[in-house]
């Protein structure tokens, strides 16, 4: 009947072992069963193995926690939205049945159990929910794919401009991240500009296009090492209007909010709040808030980055210079945002690679998972974010040298204890590069052994250990590494990176105070 092979996992909650056995016998070995003998056990199972459970059969009268209480918890945590519950109980008076339905139960099977009825109701419920789940997953993956592609296209475009400009591409990423942080801070401190989470995301994406007009600027002006003459500067200044013109010619997409916003940003990101900017010389809130924010982000990043003509200023100096009006003139509210968000701005610019990565995960649930039909995927994200919190907490607590390395992008994350032992940051981008601070530690021998062991490992045999000599903090050391390679279960499996622990042999003697 219905599903073939592995039908899914059913949680049977009943205080009588006999009743649980009768039910699983009736439903048959096409399904897997998890049993719980009271409501509290059921909640614990749902908490830890949430994504595995496809159906709950729930008794009402039970010790410790009854069936109604389980339903209530399933409602408050929204598990009820995607895990169907069939009540199994003698308490089959109309008021009991109605109460269970009101609390989200999909069906009610009264005792005594009848094999054909139990089986049919279970299979029907299963098929209905499986179909719904598949549709929701399809929708999610399409939304994700679409979003990923459009972000990708924007990145490609903006990087072409940067590339010609001889810059690394980090500027666009920084401006994008700064824009997002400043906007989020802005809506927190004032309700003057009513911006939804979706609009904030959209403006941040559009910000990447702020300099596309620069492709019309001749090379010798764009990449001139020295100071620009007045004539050259006049040409340079045309880039904002040029970018806006290019966008306005995309008539086919003229009504797209992303395009409108990108237009505002391109055209007005060099305007000043006091009206002394270009190209239009508009002032105050005649300048759209998107362009005001990007202007500030642009200036901040220019100040804190190395350029051909100057060294990078520190975060603190840059903030002071902006506040004192030495670099442009801004909306006082935005200056307030800059101060309020100073710490996160500093962190984001330092760890922009990591930030972009989590941006995807961060962004999608907020915008799309607010729809209740999309909760299955949200559950997975919730679990993921829970795992991340747990992992981070334990990493921070550990006194061991633990590490987590991913290949793409090449990022090494250490426990605080590990970072202290090496005297480095906790997050290291490109740890194997020649100018990495970790170059002495990742000596040739360590690198060679590690690569070899990783190549030998597989998803089935991911764990390995090895010893080698290296130099830490200027001292020759003998170390042992216990590692596990990590993989994504694709076909063929995709190698992600290595996690592990470094042990010093012998342990370093603590320095005398």
């Amino acid at each position: 009947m219905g599903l073939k092979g592995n039908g899914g996992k059913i949680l049977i909650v009943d205080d009588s072992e006999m009743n649980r056995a009768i039910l699983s016998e009736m439903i048959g070995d096409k399904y897997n069963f998890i049993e719980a003998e009271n409501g509290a056990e059921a909640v614990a199972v749902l908490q830890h193995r949430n994504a595995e459970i496809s159906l709950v059969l729930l008794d009402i009268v039970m010790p410790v926690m009854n069936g109604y209480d389980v339903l209530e918890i399933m409602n408050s945590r929204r598990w009820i939205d995607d895990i169907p519950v069939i009540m199994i109980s003698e308490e089959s008076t109309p008021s009991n049945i109605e109460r269970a339905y009101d609390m989200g139960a999909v069906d009610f099977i009264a005792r005594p159990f009848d094999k054909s009825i139990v089986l049919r109701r279970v299979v029907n419920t299963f098929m209905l929910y499986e179909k719904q789940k598949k549709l929701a997953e399809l929708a999610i993956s399409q939304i994700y794919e679409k979003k990923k592609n459009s972000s990708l296209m924007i990145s490609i475009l903006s990087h072409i401009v940067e590339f010609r400009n001889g810059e690394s591409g980090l500027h666009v990423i920084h401006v994008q991240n700064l824009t997002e942080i400043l906007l989020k801070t802005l809506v927190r401190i004032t309700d003057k500009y009513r911006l939804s989470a979706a609009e904030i995301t959209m403006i941040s994406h559009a910000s990447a296009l702020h300099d596309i007009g620069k492709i019309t600027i001749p090379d010798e002006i764009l990449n001139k090492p020295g100071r620009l003459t007045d004539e050259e500067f006049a040409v340079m200044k045309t880039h904002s209007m040029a970018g806006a013109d290019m966008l306005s010619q995309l008539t086919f997409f003229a009504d797209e909010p992303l395009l409108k916003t990108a237009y505002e940003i391109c055209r007005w990101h060099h305007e000043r709040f006091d009206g002394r900017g270009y190209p239009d010389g508009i002032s105050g809130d005649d300048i759209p808030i998107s362009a005001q924010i990007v202007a500030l982000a642009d200036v901040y990043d220019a100040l804190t980055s190395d350029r051909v003509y100057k060294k990078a200023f520190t975060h603190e100096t840059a903030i002071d210079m902006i506040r004192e009006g030495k670099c442009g003139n801004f909306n006082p509210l935005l200056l307030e945002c800059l101060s309020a968000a100073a710490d996160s701005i500093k962190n984001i610019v330092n760890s922009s690679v990591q930030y972009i990565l989590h941006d995807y995960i961060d962004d999608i649930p907020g915008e799309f998972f607010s729809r209740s039909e999309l909760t299955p995927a949200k559950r997975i994200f919730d679990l993921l974010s829970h795992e991340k919190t747990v992992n981070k907490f334990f990493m921070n607590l550990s006194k061991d040298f633990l590490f987590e390395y991913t290949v793409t992008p090449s990022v090494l994350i250490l426990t605080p204890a590990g970072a202290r032992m090496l005297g480095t940051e906790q997050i290291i981008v490109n740890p194997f590069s020649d100018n990495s601070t970790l170059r002495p530690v990742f000596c040739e021998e360590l690198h060679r052994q590690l690569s070899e062991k990783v190549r030998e490992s597989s998803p089935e045999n991911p764990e390995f250990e090895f010893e080698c000599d290296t130099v830490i903090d200027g001292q020759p050391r003998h170390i042992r590494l216990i590692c596990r390679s990590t993989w994504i279960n694709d076909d063929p499996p995709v190698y992600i990176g290595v996690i592990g622990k470094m042990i010093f042999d012998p342990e370093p003697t603590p320095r005398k105070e």
Partner: protein
Amino acid sequence: MNLIECYSALGGNYEDVLRRLTNERLIKKFAVRFLDDKSYGLLEASLNENNVEEAFRAAHTIKGVCANLGFDKLMHSSADVTEALRAGDLDRAKQLFPAVSEDYHLTVDSIKALDD
């Protein structure tokens, strides 16, 4: 005795249970497992300790299991105790308990007399 004789001895409804569980092997398997069910012992102990809630749940479980297995006689007597306890009437539950006890032992003895 065979399964039909056993059901008749313990006051059960064999026809109904056969219809619901669909095969004899299954009925026999669960009937034998009933010997291991702890609910009767829990009911007795809870009544002695005047623990109404625990006694209610135990009686309720006996009633449910008996309904599923078609042990009608024991189901009826345990249902009476269940309702007394649901109403919080411990004295009445204690008065009714000897009937449950009698039916329980009749049921257990009948199952034990089953042919292998």
